[in-house]
């Protein structure tokens, strides 16, 4: 979405140079028009690191910037309002304190003139402050989502890297395991385990969800490794006697960061939705903890009478997932200035 004007040419474009290279005295074969990467270099004769180029491309992506802003806002709101891990926040009510219902528990939030009122998001049936409850749920959901993302990334990357690099029996074995896990729909396998683990607490629950959602990433990383291991720079490393460990971690893995980061962000937004779905089935977070999914599930029968109990947590789920998805899209564009890869 960021490169509005430039129509990406064929895949050779990035590896080839044109006369626009001010840095160089000599050039090699190119038939493609100048790429963004090249014009980046025209403007600034000073060398830019790859990281800086990626950052610049990312910050040109308006959707991603909006996503970052939204996510940061949600983070701040959720963690400063009611506090976290014993540190108190600026909001004076607690999510588990029962109180008398004020104006039938309707939200008191007004946007113009802006005022939070007594209970900005209203109160639930038991009179608990729904703003505090939603914030608490947001905290839980965010924590779960990020843990799931990280666990899935670690497992998926390891499995994919080993399978893609070593081929042979390692690959056959790991990919068959992946096939087995892929055969079972994520919701189903998660539902089967969630019941037990969720009782153990949020973190084991999140780790377990990570353990069942790594398969997509493993396939992607394996695909990347399969193509990168045939690249000449890998052969070059082999020819000077670099160990497999060094080749995987120093040579191939850094070149797959893009894929890994992008699909991790997608895994995070997927995890938010998965957590809510499981909570909806009664298999997710259990009391006294709460999460956005649980908040909706607890109040699903209230939709006709107290729609805010249903809508507020929903809005936060969508907000987080949307922000993360846009960030993922921005990262994809930043890491791969050519068109998005479609291979699985």
């Amino acid at each position, binding site marked *: 979405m960021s490169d509005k*004007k*430039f*129509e990406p*040419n*064929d895949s050779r474009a990035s*590896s*080839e*140079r*044109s*006369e*626009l*290279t001010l*840095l*160089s*005295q*000599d*050039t*090699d*074969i*190119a*038939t493609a*028009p*100048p*790429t*963004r*990467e090249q*014009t980046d*270099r*025209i403007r600034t004769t000073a*060398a*830019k*690191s*790859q990281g800086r180029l990626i950052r610049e491309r990312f910050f040109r992506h308006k959707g991603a910037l909006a996503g970052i802003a939204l996510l940061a806002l949600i983070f701040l709101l959720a963690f400063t309002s009611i506090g976290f891990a014993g540190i108190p926040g600026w909001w004076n009510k607690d999510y588990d304190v029962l109180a008398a219902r004020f104006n039938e528990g309707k939200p008191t939030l007004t946007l113009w003139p802006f005022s939070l009122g007594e209970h900005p998001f209203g109160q639930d049936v038991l009179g608990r402050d729904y703003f505090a409850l939603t914030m608490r749920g947001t905290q839980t959901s965010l924590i779960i989502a990020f843990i799931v993302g990280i666990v899935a990334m670690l497992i998926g990357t390891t499995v994919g890297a080993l399978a893609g690099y070593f081929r042979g029996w390692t690959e056959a074995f790991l990919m068959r395991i992946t096939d087995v896990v892929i055969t079972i729909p994520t919701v189903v396998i998660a539902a089967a385990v969630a019941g037990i683990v969720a009782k153990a607490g949020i973190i084991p629950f999140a780790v377990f969800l990570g353990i069942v959602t790594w398969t997509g990433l493993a396939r992607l990383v394996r695909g990347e490794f399969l193509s990168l291991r045939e*690249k*000449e*720079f890998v*052969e*070059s*490393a*082999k*020819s*000077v*006697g*670099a160990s497999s460990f*060094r080749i995987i971690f*120093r*040579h191939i893995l*850094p*070149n797959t960061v893009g894929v890994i980061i992008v699909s991790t962000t997608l895994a995070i937004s997927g995890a938010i939705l998965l957590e809510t779905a499981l909570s909806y089935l009664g298999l997710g977070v259990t009391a006294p903890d709460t999460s956005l999914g649980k908040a909706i599930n607890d109040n699903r029968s209230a939709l006709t009478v107290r729609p805010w109990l249903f809508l507020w947590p929903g809005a936060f789920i969508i907000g987080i997932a949307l922000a993360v998805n846009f960030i993922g899209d921005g990262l994809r564009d930043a890491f791969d200035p050519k068109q998005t890869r479609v291979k699985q």
Partner: protein
Amino acid sequence: MGSHTSEIITDDQAPEHEGPILAVENLGVEFNVDDEWVMAAENVSFEIHPGEILAVVGESGSGKSMSSMALLGLLPRNGRSTGSAKMLGKELIGAPQSMLRRVRGNEIAMIFQEPMTALNPVLTVGEQIREAIEQHTELSPAQAKKRAIELLRMVEIPEAERRYDSFPHQFSGGQRQRAMIAIALANDPMLLIADEPTTALDVTVQAEVLDLLRKLNKRLNSGVLLITHDMGVVADLADHVVVMEKGRVVEAAPTAQLFAAPREDYTRQLLGAVPHLGSKVGGVLADVEVVDGRLSIHEEYAERLQTDREHRSAAGVVPALELIDVDIEYPGRFRQPAFKAVNGVSLTINPGEVMGLVGESGSGKSTIARAVTGLIRTAAGSVTIGGTDITRLSARQLLPLRKKFAIVFQDPAASLNPRLSIGDSIGEPLLLHEKLGRAALDERVASLLDDVQLPVAFRNRYPHELSGGQRQRVGIARALSLQPDLLVADEPTSALDVSVQAKVLELLQELQRERGFACLFVSHDLAVVELLASHIAVLNKGTLVEQGSTEQILKYPRDAYTRRLLAAAPVPDPKEQSLRREQRSALLAMGAGE
């Protein structure tokens, strides 16, 4: 001029008209990148007359391809063109798409560089020719098919009827380019734009395709706009040449005049940079004489050189590299037999000697380069480096030996890790083998950069910030960092422009003289090999057909394949090239007669 008949082209169908087919005046091409217009070509003017072949020559980025794309309105979406291009008086620049569509493939047709990617992989070749015919004529599908088969036959595809239903991946590279030509000729175009038509092909195939283009051009009396970077191809085919540099026309002249007396400095530089086959040893195929189209080969010339060879094998030193009866197989997958890429190859390189390994694609030359550096395993035979057979060694045992040999790869864009800085790339072998500290490493890297004539500041840069030639220098620095006794160079310059290639070759030669390492120089380009190598080995389909001193191989080859290979390589000299063409057809005729 959509032909309304299904007949194959005859000579009398040639278009009759006055003046040029195409007159280009002040053509400019620009690209919009991030709201800035970047010039790709400007003030380009030339004319093409019937029956004429005009070559537009230039190195990469000279704007030669983009100006030809602009003629047909095929620029990428962010491009725009200015100026004028009149085809028989009809303005093409700025014309509406509907009008351009009638011109494309009908009056002006194009051939592209990569036959591999230029044909749609999911449609049959016949279908792709047929639709070009149907688009511009009122022929029925059956008639169009008939004509498509005739066209396939015309471009010399064997068994045209059967091959009509084949998919592009079932064709060889040369056949694909022939199919492309068939598509381009489907509607008897007045002008054929050939954009690097033979760059992706082997020399022998290239020679055939060029012959075909020349024949067709004569028969059709149409114009050909040939876009190329290869001076040999220009000398072989073109009547007129336009030289472009950085989007501008530098010089335009008839071919003979341009090669004999280039006016501009740039042209002189360009011509000077092109390696000329036979320039060092003084002639190619000196024992082949063509008199009135009849061929005679003077066998006795070769014998004089035999003594040299005997002398060499008797030298008694430990060779830097010795291959004895090496077989290399690519393991077959389930139900597929293994593919034998190299079959019984033996060769010897003495210390300080440069051996050129020459062959076409699929000859197994890169496979040998990789086996020699321990990147792939051999199936049989021995590979001895400095007296140690590496085929029996485990990875761990091989590790200390890796200091003794190094490899430079073909594609400088792919052979450097994009996420490692130049300094880290060059320093990696030192780090692994000599376990140097930071300061010592920095010092060595700096001196290596200096050796390959790159500024020391480059060590903090990343590969994408360097040009192709600079990257290849980095590749060389990395390979030489451990001062190996043997350097394997796998087509190190074939991805580079000629002027860059010349500089890189010069550097390699200089370093080789200074350091005296032995070198296995793998290349498809005989002229490049001639510059560097003292000995040449010729590979064909995995077998070594001939080896000997450079002079012997180039002047008095014994093997028919070597002769064909030598005859097919075009030289950048129109006069010499036309003689060589005769030689080649005589050789081919003899080959066919045998």
